[in-house]
């Protein structure tokens, strides 16, 4: 009798409208009805986890979204009749993240938390409803990381901001025929470091900066009456207004430029400078780049290396997402390695050899976090000659580089995968043979090697032999289904540390209670993405790129690809956070105790690991493993 009325009510709302009749009967049979006068806090983060699932019968309940609670302009979300709360808290068995307050007199149906698991079990419809809820949470993850990591820097400096929002005043411009003297006066009186030369259509034709004055005007003794177009840098690199601050930071890091004109539909709207981007930072991308380029001793490079870590920490705090951050770290580390190579190459008799420094592993994938040990090798072109003597000349050089990298905070590889090891200092032909034998071999170690070395990329030197190796390899692997299958098997060897019930499976022994975010987390995505890339002939080494390109070739729905990537980046972000907190102690650099995480992160971590499982299931299905 009562149940009929309640059932009729619930049937009007999702997920009860779709819920299996039997499950709904079970649900209704365990309901109570609570009353909360306006102003009552129904759930409060200060109290223990909710003992009940609430379904509003009538009235209005407000909740500050957990994202909003930490920023100034909190936007409350109102819940009305038929809406449930707090599904997340019950799923994760934690307290709520923000208070749920009745803003009008409110009646709620109440379902006991003790039966929640049974409800999930009985009703696939409700289970789906709950899972969808969690997936939506994951989308918030990036914003949350930012807020959890640092509430002080706030949203304003987020590297995700568009350049349009960074352009605060119109750029100082002049026409191409303006005399140099007039330009210099303008720059002097307006105290600007650069001037944009624009054509009649408002498009940037060139840029002229204070640094150019010395080289091109003073030292070149150019006449001050000449048009600026003769001394400007023509066709400057520009970015669209919708590009983000991080893209500008990358460009600055890559090209060593200080000013980036920002265009909207081709027309100049302003200039973003390095100072705009890193106004509040002690170290900047360009400054580090500059220091690296100027360094002529390993001592100086050690400082630069610690600056890279400091910058990473600062940018992470400003909300730069893991994808961009690992890319920036990799880019700067690349510059560092290049400089070391240049310095050491000058000390050893390696001139005249076509060698190329190869990066493997995370460096090869542009996914370096802060604590990364070395994974590198050398490839050289020996032609038809005996590679032995060339190797003998290269090895002392490579070993010196390995030592320098160690001094700069990239510890020697425990597995000795380093260019200074004769085994990984090989000619193009030797590398070819090596890969061929790995691919032909069924030995697990060979497979492991193939996986590590597959993610190589040329870092410095002569690109030609590395490019040739990549071409050779793609053909070799794509045509070999047994090898692909083995690699897939390898990718499925470890499983996400998720328990059957909904908890984490943590390790024992030295790292009791923790999970390894690399081995049992990020690696699952990396290995999975490698399999997909190999199967579809995607040449990228970067995991996100592999997922995106291989995923689209496999007709995976874009949302699925995005969810998997999000999961990967969340794990990467967690690793970064742990590494920053650990401050260089490498042993625990990838370890996290789920119990130490806040509730939001724990929930997202769980969902991220589920995404890894999803990727693995797809591979298992594809290869019928």
């Amino acid at each position, binding site marked *: *009798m*009562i*149940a*009929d*009325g*309640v059932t*009729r009510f619930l049937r009007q709302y999702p997920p009860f409208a779709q819920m299996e009749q039997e499950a709904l009967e079970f649900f*209704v*049979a*365990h*309901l*109570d*009805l*609570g*009353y*909360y*006068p306006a102003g*009552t806090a129904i759930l409060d983060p200060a109290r223990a986890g909710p003992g009940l699932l609430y379904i509003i019968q*009538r*009235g209005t309940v407000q909740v500050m979204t957990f994202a909003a609670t930490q920023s100034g302009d909190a936007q409350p979300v109102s819940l009305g009749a038929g809406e449930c709360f707090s599904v997340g808290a019950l799923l994760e068995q934690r307290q709520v993240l923000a208070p749920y307050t009745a803003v009008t*007199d409110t*009646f709620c*149906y*109440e379902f006991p938390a003790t039966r929640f698991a049974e409800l999930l079990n009985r009703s696939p419809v409700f289970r789906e409803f709950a899972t969808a809820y969690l997936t939506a949470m994951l989308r918030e993850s990036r914003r949350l990381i930012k807020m959890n990591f640092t509430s002080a820097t706030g949203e304003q400096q987020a590297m995700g901001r568009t350049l349009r929002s960074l352009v605060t005043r119109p750029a100082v411009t002049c026409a191409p025929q303006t005399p140099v003297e007039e330009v210099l006066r303008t720059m002097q009186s307006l105290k600007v470091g650069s001037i944009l030369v624009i054509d009649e259509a408002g498009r940037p034709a060139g840029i002229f900066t204070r640094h150019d004055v010395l080289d091109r005007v003073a030292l070149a003794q150019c006449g001050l009456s000449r048009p600026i177009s003769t001394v400007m840098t023509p066709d400057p690199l520009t970015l669209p207004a919708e590009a983000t601050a991080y893209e500008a930071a990358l460009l600055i890091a890559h090209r060593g430029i200080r000013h980036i004109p920002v265009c909207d539909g081709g027309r100049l709207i302003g200039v973003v400078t390095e100072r705009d981007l890193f106004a509040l930072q002690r170290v900047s991308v360009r400054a580090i780049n500059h220091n690296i380029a100027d360094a002529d001793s390993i001592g100086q490079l050690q400082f630069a290396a610690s600056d890279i870590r400091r910058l990473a920490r600062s940018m992470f705090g400003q909300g730069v997402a893991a994808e961009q951050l690992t890319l920036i770290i990799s880019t700067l580390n690349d510059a560092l390695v290049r400089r070391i190579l240049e310095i050491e190459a000058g000390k050893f008799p390696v001139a005249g050899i076509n060698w190329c420094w190869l990066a493997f592993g995370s460096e090869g994938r542009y996914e370096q976090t802060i604590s990364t040990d070395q994974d590198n090798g050398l490839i050289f072109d020996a032609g038809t000659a005996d590679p032995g003597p060339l190797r003998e000349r290269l090895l002392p050089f490579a070993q010196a580089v390995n030592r320098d990298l160690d001094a700069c905070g990239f510890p020697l590889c425990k597995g000795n995968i380093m260019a200074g090891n004769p085994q990984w200092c090989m000619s193009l032909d030797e590398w070819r043979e090596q890969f061929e034998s790995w691919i032909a071999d069924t030995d697990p170690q060979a497979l492991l090697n193939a996986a590590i070395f597959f993610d190589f990329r040329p870092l410095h030197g002569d690109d030609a032999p590395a490019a040739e190796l990549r071409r050779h390899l793609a053909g070799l692997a794509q045509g070999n289904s047994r090898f692909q299958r083995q690699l897939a098997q390898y990718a499925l060897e470890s499983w996400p540390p998720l328990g059957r019930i909904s908890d984490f499976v943590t390790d024992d022994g030295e790292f009791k209670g923790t999970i390894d975010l690399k081995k049992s987390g990020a690696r699952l995505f990396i290995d999975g993405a490698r399999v997909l890339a190999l199967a579809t002939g995607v040449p990228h080494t970067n995991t996100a790129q592999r997922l995106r390109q291989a995923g689209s070739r496999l007709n995976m729905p874009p949302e699925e690809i995005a969810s998997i990537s999000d999961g990967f980046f969340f794990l990467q972000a967690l690793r970064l956070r742990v590494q920053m907190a650990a401050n260089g102690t490498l042993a625990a650099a990838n370890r996290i105790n789920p119990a130490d995480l806040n509730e939001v992160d724990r929930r997202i971590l769980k969902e991220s690991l589920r995404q890894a499982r999803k990727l693995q299931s797809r591979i298992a299905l594809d290869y019928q493993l």
Partner: protein
Amino acid sequence: MSWLRRLFGAGPRLTMEQSLALAAYHARPEIPAATPLATLRCVVVDVEATGLDPFTDRLISIGAVSVEDRTVRLGSGFEVVLCQPQASSRANILIHGIDGTSQLAGLDPATALISFLDYAERAPLVGFHADFDRALIDRAATNALGRAPSLVWLDLAYLAPALLAKPGMAVPQGLDAWSQQFGITNHARHNALADALATAQLLQVVLARAIAAGFTTLADLQRIEKDQRWLGRH
């Protein structure tokens, strides 16, 4: 059996089980007046009868639902139809919807009333215009069990105006008007259980307001009701 007869007087003939159940019921301690409102268990009651005269009409059905910790225990609804010697009038049946066949097929009144008392335990009974419900239940119990149960009754017809009336606004009259004010829906008016459910929700509002106003015990509610009754008469 003599002690049982002495206990209940020469009333109606009850079976052994019924007598024992009744004895067990009366042996229960009464609810202390100092019981805190926040955790109090109340049983909200509504009855349907053959008419509107509490002194001549007969009890047809009792609907009840319990409120505990200020929460309506939806799963604990109680509903019983008492077996009638003859079906009530057609007009009456149209009100409560308990047709003649159901009336004649109901439980024998003694069993029905004992099961109700067992359900209520010694919790205070709450009704809207509870005097009517109380009169019918007491009379039916006197007839069927030999005596009326001594229970605490609370009447929302007095408690609601005392605690919920807003100054300067007309005081709602009747359960429907109060329900409307608080948005309480009733999916089957004049079904004893559905009416009890609506009344229970009004009780929730009353309890919340009473606690917010600083009242803490069952005795407080009884005093408020008494005062309001006195006001109503003057």
